[in-house]
Each structure stands twice: as C-alpha cells, then as structure tokens.
C-alpha cells in the first residue's frame, strides 16, 4: 500500500535504514519517534521509576519479616486495605452516577448553559483540595449550614452528627474527584456526532432507547477511563479523610502517613506503600482488560 513507494530503497538498505525511513509521509520514522519520546521517558525514569524502585527496595531493607511479616501478623492492615478499596469503589460509583449527566449536559447543552456547567466543573478543579475539604467542614459541622437547614425546616430537632463520619469522607471525596470523571466522559461524548442519535430516532427508537443503545455504549471508554483515574486517586487520598473523617474512617494512606512522620519507620511505610501500589496496579490492569473488551463490544456495528 503506502509503503510500496519506498519499496525500492528498502530493498537496497534493509534493516537498519528502515529505522530512519517513515512508513508513510503522515508518520515520523521510528528513530525520530524515539528521539521525540526520549526526554519524557528520561524524566519518567529519573523522577518516577527510580524513586519507586528505591521505595520497594527500602521495604526489604530490614528483612522481609520485619516489614511484610508484621503486615500479615496483625489483621488491622488487611482490614484497612479492604476498607480503602471499598471506599474507593463507592466513591467511583457515586462519581460516575453524578458525573455522567453533567458530562452529558456539557457536551449537548447550548452555548451559554454549557459554559455555566463547564465553569461549575472547572472552578472547583482550580481550587485547592484543602479548601474544598474545609468547605465540607463548614457545611457538615454541628452548627453548620446543613444542620441549621434541617432544624429550620423541622426535619429534625437535634443536630445530626455528619462531620467526622465515613459518610462525610465518601461525600467529600466524591466531590473532589468528580471533575476527573466528568472530563474523560465529556471528551468522548463530544466526539459523538449527533447524526448517530438522529439515525436511531429515525429508525424508530425513543429518546431513552437511543441513549441506552447508541450513546451510552459509545461513551463507555470515557466512563472506564474516568473510573480508573477516580479509583486510583481515591486509593491514595490523604487530606480529605484526615480532615472530615473520624477514627472510624481509617484508610491506608493514613497508616502510611503515621509510619512516615510519627514513627519515622520508613521501611514499614515503604512496605505499606508497596502493597497499596500492587493493589492499584492490579486494579488498573483489570480495568484495562475490561476496557478492551468493552471497546470491541462498542465498535460492533
């Protein structure tokens, strides 16, 4: 096909030379591609892979029993790991359920409405996580806005304890992570031509049927991308649970923080981090597998 034009030169200079010859005028040659990717790879290797390897190495520095053995000794660590995964999962579910309609509105609404919706999504993203978490303290505390409202409307006569609970942690984390779910879904929905829906409607599907059979399956890659980002970020969340959570909402990052700063036991902190890292990687691989299945499913016409 396209390569046929360079066939003659390929014959003359096989192997090595093909590195410098692009397969078509539309793409860079392999060598040029590598050259362009090199700076990023170098930064990635020095700034991320090397410290990560050091971290894993540190976790073994005092013998495997001193760190990983201790981790297995006390059921606390497995329990907290499970809680962390459960919280991350519920936050991800909530963020998708709440975020999808917003992404849909951003992609479909008229100019002015789309702008307002987009601003509502982006302005919080520009605000510090710390400030957004503090805002939830103001809302949820005993004499906070929510309790005042509940009492004023007569729904309760005693203030409800909302701050420093697991519910508050899930709520605040969902709020903080919502933009990370909305944006990937939005970017996929935006590329879907209106014609698909029109075609479905033209063939007799109602608006709901057109959405569930056409729009939703086509937007699933965005949903999965958003879910992955949200889940991975939620696994490592530290500030929000520390601010709005109580003793009952103990998560893996809290334990890692304790070992790092309070006890300065870095090998054990590294072991805890490695376990969390392995779980994160497993989840990402699992998500990717599901994603590729979905992609195949989605592109069946």
């Amino acid at each position, binding site marked *: 096909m396209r390569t046929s034009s360079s066939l003659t030169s390929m014959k003359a200079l096989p192997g090595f030379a093909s590195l410098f010859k692009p397969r078509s005028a539309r793409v860079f040659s392999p060598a040029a591609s590598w050259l362009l990717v090199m700076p990023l790879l170098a930064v990635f290797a020095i700034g991320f892979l090397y410290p990560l390897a050091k971290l894993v190495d540190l976790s073994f520095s005092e013998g495997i029993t001193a760190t990983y053995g201790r981790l297995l000794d006390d059921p606390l660590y497995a329990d907290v790991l499970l809680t962390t995964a459960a919280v991350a999962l519920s936050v991800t579910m909530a963020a998708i359920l709440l975020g999808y309609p917003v992404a849909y509105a951003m992609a479909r609404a008229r100019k002015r409405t789309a702008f307002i919706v987009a601003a509502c999504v982006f302005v919080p993203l520009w605000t510090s996580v710390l400030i957004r978490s503090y805002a939830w303290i103001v809302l949820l505390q005993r004499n906070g806005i929510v309790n005042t409202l509940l009492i004023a409307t007569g729904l309760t006569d005693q203030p409800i304890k909302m701050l420093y609970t697991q519910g508050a942690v899930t709520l605040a984390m969902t709020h903080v992570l919502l933009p990370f779910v909305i944006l990937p879904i939005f970017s996929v929905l935006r590329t879907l031509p209106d014609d698909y829906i029109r075609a479905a409607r033209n063939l007799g599907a109602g608006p709901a049927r057109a959405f569930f059979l056409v729009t939703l399956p086509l937007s699933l890659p965005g949903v999965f991308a958003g879910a992955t980002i949200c889940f991975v970020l939620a696994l490592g969340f530290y500030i929000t649970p520390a601010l709005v959570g109580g*003793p009952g909402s103990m998560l893996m990052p809290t334990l890692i923080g304790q070992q790092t700063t*309070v006890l300065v036991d870095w090998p054990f902190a590294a072991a805890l981090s490695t376990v969390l890292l392995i779980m994160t990687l497993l989840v990402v691989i699992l998500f990717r597998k599901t994603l590729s299945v979905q992609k195949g499913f989605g592109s069946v016409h």
Partner: protein
Amino acid sequence: MLKRTSIATRLFIGTITFLGLFNFGQTSLAGERIVIASTGGAYDRALKEAWFDPFTKETGIEVVTVVATNAEMRAKATAMVKTGNVTWDLYLDGEIQAASEAHSKITEDLTDFCKQFSGRKDLAANACERGGVLLQSTATLLAYRTNDAGTPHPESWADMWDTKRFPGGRAFPNFDDPWRVLAAALLADGVAKDALFPLDIDRAFRKLDEIRSDVTLWWKTGDQSVQGFRNGDYSLGQIWLTRAQAMQNEGLPIGWSYKASFLVGDRIALVKGAPHHDNALKLIAFWLNSLAAQAEACEVLSCTPPSTDAIAMMSEKARRSMPNADDIRDYIVVPDAQWINANAASLLQRWNNWVR
C-alpha cells in the same frame, strides 16, 4: 457543534496549563541567617515577637521560620540528615520525642553547650539537655464547660468517666500519640499516679470501652478541639492548656483542672550538620538568657518558661492560670518518655485496632 463546546474545551486547556505551572522555590539570600522550623500560627507569631525579633536586633542575624507539624518536622529533619542535604538549623519537637534514640541520631548533642548554664539557679533542671533546649512547658488536661454557679465542676479523670454526675459529650485526642488517653483511663480506673508507668494497656482499653459511646469528638488538631468546643460538640474534653486558655481569653465558658493533667513541653533541637551551626547556638542561648523574651512569649501562649525569674516577670493574671507548686507535686503527671518511646510503634498499632 464545535462552537458550542469550544468554551468548555478552552477551560479544559486552561486547566491543564494551570496544573503545569511550576512553583520555583525562593532562592536563598546571602547574609547571616538561621532557619528554624516551628508549628506556625499564633505560636510562631508569639515566638517571633518575643524572641526572634529582639535577637535579630541585637546580632543582625536574620531568623527565617518554616512551618510544619511536629511529626512533619521530625520526618523532614530525618530525611535531611539521611540524604546529607540539611537546610534547617533548628526545629521544635515534643519533650518526649526529644528523649528518643531516633532523635539523637538526627540532632547534635548539646551536652557541652549546656555546661555554660549549669550555674543558673533560676532554670529548671531539664532546661538544657543533650536532645535540645527547653522552650516551654504546658499541659494536656481536663477542660470543661462551666455551667451555672453552684453546680460541681469535674476535677479528676474519674469525673470524666462519670457520665451521670457530669452529662454531655466527651472529647479525646486522636493524633497518633495515644499514651495520654490510655494514662487518663488508668488514672480514672484508680491506678495511682506513681504506679502509672509502664501503662497497663489491656486495662486502659477496657476502661476506654466504657466511655467510647459518649465520645463525641476525637480531635486530630488543636484547632479541631477549639472548633468542637465552640460548636458545643462536647462538654468535657482532654485538650491542650494553650488552647483552653485561648478559648477563655475569647470569653468562652471554659474551665480546667490541674488535678487531671499531664506535663508536656517543647524542645528546640539542633539538626545534625546544620548549615548555620554557631548562629543557631547563639539563638538558643539567647532564649535561655533573655528572661524578657521567655516572659513575653509565655504571657501570650500561657505556657511555663524554663526560668523561674521569667515567671516572676509575667503578669498576675497569667501566673494565676499556671499550676501551683502543690498541683505539680500532688497531681500533675510527668510522662515516662523512655517507656513511651520504646513502645511507640506497638502502642499505636493497638490504638489503631481499638479506635477504628
């Protein structure tokens, strides 16, 4: 379609650009200076006015402060010493932590420096030790909402557990340093002050089980304990005296009992390999030598300065809120730092298991 979404797209690109901006740290200035890490806020301001500013005026050496929590400072100082990239000279740490082995690995031994103060009768016996110089002492104690006159006030930890005589929510600290809560439980259970350490952990947790359902606030930061009291989240709580004093100054109806209190203090430690070693020593010597600085800072923070002569310079009002000699002798518990440090990891693990 393109036009309709272009604003959202622009916002998206704007965000990415915004996130990509780097904040380059300030480059260091020439000239003589000292870097000290402290916990910031009102504490920092008081120290600056009473101690750093007069020092700079006298010596011309600039004092730069860096803000972090005690635990963060400890972790960061450890990292600096381990990597050989020390940028801090001094940092503040708790009295108990300053007695630990880990502390002596990352700080300079001040024993020789301390010799010059051995003749000072006004200084507390522990004012200058190998792990650091005593900045101030204060207490973690039982504070309560003062009701109408005539009703009894809680005095001891046993009263804290007595929910019939003293109804209302309870507050306890949950900042990864659980010995105070366990010790209070044991005292409430009838353990004598002198027999407190080593702590009987099982007994302490059994006693804590009794009060658990009445605890309405587990505070992590001093600000949380203040905000919780303002909001009426609790009526009796184990909190820091400095915060209780601040609330009383604000006019809140709060009182406290030295009969249920633990002595805690802050030390100024010199980081191993500090870049401005000699100037840093001048700054800590200035603290112990300047009675005016000690008196002024502790007047604001309601702490006890290391020098008794400095206490004499403080106002009548400030001195009245300090524990008297009888309280110190009979009630105030001085924690066994060595035992706490030796058992820190296992204590925290037991605590995590219990509290969650």
